[in-house]
């Protein structure tokens, strides 16, 4: 299977923050959730992929082309959506299409108008007058109208209400059903990914903690719960991000460690949030 995006050993450091050897790959035709708390390095990674930031080391490929050296080719296939529109605020919706057209060999004006219709974007409205959800949909409409094969969405749903978020998920589900489009979706609202994402890459403090199929993430860990007396040393040694209270405790453990725990401790499959929260908490405690 060909990869839509391949990031290998990406490094980038600022004072006080470093992206260290970040590697992951997204197979063509699938959705990958890119998760981690604010400041974990999601946007830095995305900006390196888009060459908005110069990387210190590593290699990035988009649909088999070097993302930096073959940038001109790559940008034709790439659609980008940020949480705020990057168009001048005075532009009208229809003008965005006209302005983008010369840059894309496969720009499809009729398709652009179909998308803005479908998303309910008034052609005469100015960018600055758009709500967050509409601004996001405008970027999405633009990305879809030049037949982008890889969509990179950076926190697209962060400022949206639940109904607008649901709309976005519908659009993504539609896109993926064709099979020709791949999506990298960064977010800290993991509920959006719980069902729709095929793959998850989880990053914390600039390092990849997990990357792979979402089901493997759920299989790799278990959430355990028990009473206050049950948090023995044996449990504590294996617990990740232990939270104990007077009435009990909860923690994440590796699935392989589950079998060795004392009887009476209940366990269940973790949500993406469970994994994210507990691993981040464990990291902070160190």
């Amino acid at each position, binding site marked *: 299977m060909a990869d839509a995006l391949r990031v290998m050993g990406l490094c980038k450091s600022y004072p006080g923050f470093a992206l260290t050897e970040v590697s992951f790959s997204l197979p063509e*035709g699938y*959705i990958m959730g890119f998760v981690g708390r604010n400041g974990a390095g999601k946007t830095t990674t995305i900006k390196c992929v888009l060459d908005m930031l110069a990387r210190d080391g590593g290699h990035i490929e988009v649909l088999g082309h070097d993302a930096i050296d073959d940038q001109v080719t790559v940008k034709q296939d790439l659609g980008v959506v940020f949480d705020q529109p990057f168009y001048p605020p005075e532009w009208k919706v229809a003008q965005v299409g006209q302005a983008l057209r010369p840059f894309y060999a496969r720009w499809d004006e009729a398709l652009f108008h179909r998308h803005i219709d479908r998303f309910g974007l008034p052609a005469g409205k100015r960018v600055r007058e758009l709500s967050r959800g509409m601004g996001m949909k405008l970027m999405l409409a633009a990305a879809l109208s030049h037949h982008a094969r890889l969509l990179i969405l950076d926190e697209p749903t962060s400022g949206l209400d639940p109904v607008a978020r649901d709309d976005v998920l519908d659009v993504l589900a539609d896109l993926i059903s064709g099979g020709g489009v791949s999506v990298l979706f960064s977010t800290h609202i993991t509920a959006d990914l719980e*069902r*729709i994402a*095929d793959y998850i890459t989880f990053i914390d403090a600039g390092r990849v903690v997990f990357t792979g199929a979402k*089901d493997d993430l759920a299989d790799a860990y278990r959430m355990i719960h028990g009473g206050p007396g049950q948090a023995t040393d044996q449990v504590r040694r294996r617990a990740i991000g232990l939270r104990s209270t007077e009435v009990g405790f909860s923690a994440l453990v590796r699935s392989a460690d589950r079998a060795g725990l004392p*009887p009476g401790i209940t366990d269940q499959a973790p949500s993406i949030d469970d994994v994210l929260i507990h691993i981040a908490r464990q990291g902070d405690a160190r």
Partner: protein
Amino acid sequence: MRIVVVNSGEPIYRQIEQQVARAVLAGELRDGDPLPSIRQLARDLRVSVITTTRAYTELEQHGFITTVPGKGCFARKPDPAQAHDQLRGEVNGHLREAVAAARLAGMSAADLVGMLERVLREDDHG
């Protein structure tokens, strides 16, 4: 065909697999009836493509559907003996899981049998 996915703790691929298998066994899906494509079903249920792929792969392995490359997926009537074996196998698997959970919980064999009898009675009434 009706497929409903719920947050029950049961893996989603298995929910899909069981509902399609039941529709086939119940004759609701007849031999050769077309099924939604993997990607179409993922879109409609709003689940990941990997999830529906896994459900269809298991269904195919168990003989409930066939995939014709370039054409799609179709229901397939499993022969009765095979269907029976399949269901028995499932029951056996679930019972093993129940036994493992019972051991973890420190339940005795009598406790477990008692619980099974109660579940059977409840099911008869429900």
